[in-house]
């Protein structure tokens, strides 16, 4: 089962007259706040040290950025 990531991908149309070499797979980030914009009360929390490391107190809203994704899926 593919591991869950917050990145989704779409595949733009590639035509013979494209001016530049085609980018076949474009990825975009869909962080949790898109789906749960208003934070419900009583969410579980990280402990302080983990929260400091993760950058958020709420695991539900953890949205890592693993740098530019060079090898895009489906490239």
């Amino acid at each position, binding site marked *: 089962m593919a591991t869950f990531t917050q990145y989704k991908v779409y595949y733009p149309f590639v035509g013979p007259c494209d001016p530049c070499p085609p980018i076949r797979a474009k990825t975009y980030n869909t962080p949790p706040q898109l789906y749960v914009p*208003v*934070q419900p*009360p*009583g969410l579980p929390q990280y402990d*302080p*040290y983990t*929260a*400091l490391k993760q950058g*958020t*107190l*709420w695991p539900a809203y953890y949205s890592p950025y693993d740098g530019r994704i060079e090898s895009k899926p489906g490239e």
Partner: protein
Amino acid sequence: MAHKQLTEEYYKLLHEIQAVDFVLVELNLYLDTHPSDSAIIEQYNAYAVKSKQLKEEYARRYGPLQHGDMADKPYSWPDAPWPWQV
């Protein structure tokens, strides 16, 4: 002039201060949008007290942490290590 050597204990205390202050920031942001969440307000107050204690502990042991802390004699504020050197 021997520079102040920082012990393992120093970094542990600093790390804890940073963690507690980060939790305070996060809870503060949460309370901005959920002012009536009393459980979180209690947690915020608990961490606020803890943060004050930690900073007093730091000031007592290592000198002033931030502007406005009690200065020690001789006046050590401008001495090394500066925050980015720690």
